[in-house]
């Protein structure tokens, strides 16, 4: 599903922050991406999400060389990827329900076709009572859950999550992990970037460790 070969990344003329990354993310796989702060986890996620292009090397996503993709193709490819960012990126003028339903709306689907699905998911992540609330009045944890719900609602083939349990209590963290596991069981490849050892200890999965720009994989 994802293949990196000798990928390197630098910002401008600065030092290379990701070096010689070579790995495979198989379909239906589950992995944690970890490493110290500043090791390049977010940059690697952005490479996977096509919002950064590598300085060198080959990135192949869903069987296509990403360096050959046009803007429209990138947009189509992103509909197959869900992403949860640390700063949530919710739209403040839309309710929680509308934020979560946004991927379906962008796909051009009728509201009636996804209404039940969105409501069910919002209940599952504990936002059933906050469906009509606007993000500015949500707590950090609620925003995080809304962002996760938005990333998983369309059941993407690849899910990327950057510290997805950083703002929630351990109980809710476990519940969200169950959601990711369930999504993986349904066929999504999942990559969770986290510092949280407790979270990683709760589920036996491949660990990708970034250290000084290099990647070490523990199966």
């Amino acid at each position, binding site marked *: 599903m994802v293949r990196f070969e000798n990928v390197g990344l630098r910002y401008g003329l600065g030092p290379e922050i990701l070096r010689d990354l070579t790995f495979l993310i198989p379909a239906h796989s589950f992995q944690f991406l970890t490493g110290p702060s500043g090791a390049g986890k977010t940059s690697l996620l952005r490479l996977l999400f096509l919002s950064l292009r590598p300085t060198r090397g080959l990135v192949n996503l869903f069987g296509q060389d990403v360096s050959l993709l046009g803007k*429209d193709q990138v947009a189509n490819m992103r*509909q197959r990827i869900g992403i949860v960012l640390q700063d949530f990126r919710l*739209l403040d003028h*839309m309710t929680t329900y509308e934020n979560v339903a946004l991927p379906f*709306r962008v796909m051009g689907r009728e509201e009636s076709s996804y*209404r*039940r699905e969105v409501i069910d998911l919002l209940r*599952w992540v504990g936002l059933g009572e906050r469906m009509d609330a606007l993000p500015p009045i949500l707590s950090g944890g609620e925003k995080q859950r809304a962002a996760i719900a938005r990333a998983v609602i369309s059941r993407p083939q690849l899910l990327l999550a950057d510290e997805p349990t950083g703002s929630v209590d351990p109980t809710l963290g476990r519940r969200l992990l169950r959601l990711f596991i*369930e999504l993986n069981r*349904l066929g999504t490849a999942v990559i969770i970037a986290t510092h949280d050892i407790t979270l990683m200890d709760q589920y036996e999965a491949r660990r990708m460790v970034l250290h000084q720009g290099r990647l070490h994989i523990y199966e």
Partner: protein
Amino acid sequence: MGDEHGPLVDLGTERPQVPARARNMSPIVPRASISGRALVAVVAIMTFLASITTGTVLLVSASAAEWQSEVASEITMQVRPQAGRDLERDVTAAAEAMRTQPGIVQVKPFTKDESARLLEPWLGSGLSIEQLPVPRVVVARVQPGTTLDLAALRKAVTQVAPSASVDDHRAWIERMRSMTGATVLAGIGILVLVIAATIISVSFATRGAMAANRPIVEVLHFVGAGDRYIANHFLRHFLRLGLEGGLIGGGAAMLGFGFSESIAAWFSGTPVGDQFAALLGTFSLPPSGYLALAVQAVAIAAITAWASRRTLFATLDDID
């Protein structure tokens, strides 16, 4: 995607009892985030100026065409008094000679009294025309559509009245034509400037709106929206703002032209009013003129949308 699977989450007993009613969805791009009022005002002012320019050009061209056709269908002959010749007889003979020419449908020699009345504004009343060497005027109407043989007419007239000269007003018509041409050209120039200013204003407004909505654009990119999808949502706002501005500006100009006839009537009889009436006729725009203004207002709204679309795609390239 994924509909072949069961539900993503199995809520079991947690299944909500909330009725899944239809929801009013917020617009993707909030209207309030686009500083529309200033843009509507700019487009309204531009449309108003463009409409006034077009309307005036249409009025001037219509009046000039009417004036030209009137002048072109008339020729004037002057018979100057000459020592040793009877002016009265020369005028009658020249008028007769004119009447026999093909294409001439009506000949009207001005009598002594009529000539005196023509000079009254300059020389005052009680003038004895006998004491002055005043030339006499003969006006003839030409059959519309005929080309008059002016050389033959001049020859026939000077044979019977050597002091007669014929004027077909060609010089005046040429001047009229060049004046109308200059007015139309100036109008087109103003229109081009107005449209250029509209495009520049709209491009700035679009760029400002895109900068203000950058976070929205980024999120839309995250959820897989293409540039076309995003641009279309912004474009709707700009098209609406353009139409609002066009409607206000174009409507105000049309109302102005609608009232101009009454305004011209109030000023009639005054030197200014008479001058305007001479130049612009009755000051009333025909229905086709109003149609032209309406089309122009819609065209300006379309230009607003086009300029916005162009800027949108250029800006979207920079945001990811």
